[in-house]
């Protein structure tokens, strides 16, 4: 297959462009996604190709963006909404959590809401308390929503295309620090099924489970650990809900040691779910308690040194894996 190296942001743009070309029902709406090209440049050039009727700049109105996407989806469109920062999802959350997520169920299966809400998440840019949030666990808690958080350009493109085709509301989490990262993406069209994890690196000594930015960090950590003779397996769940427990189980049965790594605060988060599930289902395979490596219990601080310290870094993964191997 022919492929080339493109950035994560370009991969997302290609996914939207391809789906918009194929299906006139697909359209974009959000703040500054037109001539500005989106706060992180993801939609750059799309208004030029598809015009302002399909790349709709809105006022600063998150309730109307997410609710608007819900309503348009209800009558047969396939909207892709952009929320400028993941933190702003909370403003439109009523429409997402109480409406979009529940409509199919509450209406007894008589209506569906095929929509995607994309949003940049994560800290590391000095944007402080209102622009650095990773709230994916909140939405993963909601039955009726799907939550995807890809780690590579290849996954980002294939999963966004599947999300747009999906008949359910999908929250698409894009870590800001990934936008400029590059990776191989095929020229040919492809889709990646939602809810399928991928083993990004095979190993035999311990399993590191993560998604989004933590996957490249775990892969970097694996190189350092390899020099010390520790061979970790890296499982990228790619989506938080649905969760591919099969791939996780397969890996855990092989390595017998598990670490789950994620950016948001450790308490009540994604790691708690993974840890609980592994404990319930795979207890007999474990040689040690599951390690949860999550963020500190605090809002994102502005100071750059603190901002870095409160989120798991490569050296934290290395240190905790070494402890796990003792």
């Amino acid at each position: 297959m022919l492929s080339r190296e493109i950035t994560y942001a370009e991969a997302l743009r290609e996914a939207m462009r391809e789906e918009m070309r194929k299906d006139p029902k697909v359209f974009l709406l959000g703040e500054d996604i037109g001539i500005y090209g989106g706060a992180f440049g993801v939609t750059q050039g799309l208004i030029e190709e598809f015009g302002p009727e399909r790349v709709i700049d809105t006022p600063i109105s998150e309730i109307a963006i997410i609710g608007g996407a819900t309503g348009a989806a209800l009558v047969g469109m396939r909207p892709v909404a952009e929320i400028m920062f993941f933190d702003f999802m909370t403003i439109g959350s009523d429409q997402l959590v109480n409406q979009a997520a529940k409509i199919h169920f509450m209406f007894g299966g008589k209506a569906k809401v095929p929509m995607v809400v994309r949003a940049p998440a994560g800290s590391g840019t000095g944007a402080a308390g209102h622009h650095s949030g990773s709230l994916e666990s909140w939405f993963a808690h909601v039955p009726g929503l799907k939550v995807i958080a890809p780690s590579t350009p290849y996954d980002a493109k294939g999963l966004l295309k599947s999300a747009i085709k999906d008949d359910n509301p999908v929250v698409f989490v894009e870590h800001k620090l990934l936008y400029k990262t590059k990776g191989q993406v095929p020229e040919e069209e492809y889709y990646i099924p939602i809810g399928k994890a991928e083993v990004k690196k095979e190993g035999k000594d311990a399993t590191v489970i993560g998604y989004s930015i933590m996957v490249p960090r775990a892969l970097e950590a694996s190189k350092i650990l390899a020099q010390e003779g520790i061979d970790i397996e890296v499982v990228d769940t790619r989506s938080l809900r649905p969760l591919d427990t099969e791939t996780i189980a397969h890996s855990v049965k092989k390595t017998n040691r598990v670490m789950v790594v994620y950016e948001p605060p450790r308490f009540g988060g994604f790691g708690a779910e993974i840890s609980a599930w592994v404990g319930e289902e795979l207890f007999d395979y474990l040689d040690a308690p599951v390690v949860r490596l999550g963020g500190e219990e605090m809002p994102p601080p502005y100071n750059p040194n603190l901002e870095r310290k409160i989120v798991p870094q490569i050296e934290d993964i290395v240190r905790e894996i070494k402890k796990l191997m003792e």
Partner: protein
Amino acid sequence: MLSLEDKLEMYRKMYLIRTFEERAEELYMEGKIWGTFHLYVGEEAVAVGACYALRADDYITSTHRGHGHCIAKGADVKRMMAELLARDTGYCHGLGGSMHIADVEKGNLGATGIVGSGIPIATGAALGCKLQKNDKVVLCFFGDGAANTGAFHESVNMAAIFNLPVVFICENNMYAMSFPAQKAFALPDIAERAKGYGIPGVSIDGNNVLEVYETAQIAIERARQGEGPTFIEARTYRWKGHSKSDRQAYRTKEEVREWMNKDSIKFLEKHLREETVREEELENIKKQVEREIEEAINFALESPEPTLEEARRMVYA
């Protein structure tokens, strides 16, 4: 009536804001300030004119473009600069940064990174003042973008029906990031919205500090007398990009230049000269302000950074 001394003080504050912003931008370019911020250059007359009409014990709520409000309400530029440089001596111990500066002792209830989110808080603060019968007024700053949030609608209505001592001052700087106010409202004047809430509304020249002061004073007095909220639309313009990553593809250089010709500081200088203020006096104010900002930068650069232990203690009261 404003005395000449008042006007000179307003001039000093406007120049202090302008200089603070310009030096902050330079520090950012030098890599000394990190993250992003939103500069208030061009809009100084709104914050200074409106805050000058407040009592020292009144409150304000600010926005993501908040440095000007903070200075106008009497903040110490040393502690502001220290916050921008993420130092422990900053207003928020380096934990909040530009978008979250609060100077609660001086009545500044804080900037916010969520557009429109200060409006319900201002409304609530006004409710608190009313319940405490303390005679204080809340001045709520927000932009044209915020006027299209749901938070705006719910808050202005609630303030109106509860007759709260709050003044809503919309800084219409013509763009919500890249979205022009002309396209974002199906009304020529945002102030017309006031009618829908049953409160007075007025559109004014936000680059004329004297007009801003006079309008704010009437609205603040109304609020203090228990006559309820007023909506002021102050038309102004941001000279710089929305944030530090803005290519400004959505507006022309000519438009920016046209607005720069309506510089609020130049306007006040002209007025002061007409009132026979000597050039030398203006120059002295400028020099003193520039010295103050350089001292603030040195103070910030020499200050320590916050520790993780300290940050942990800040999560709960």
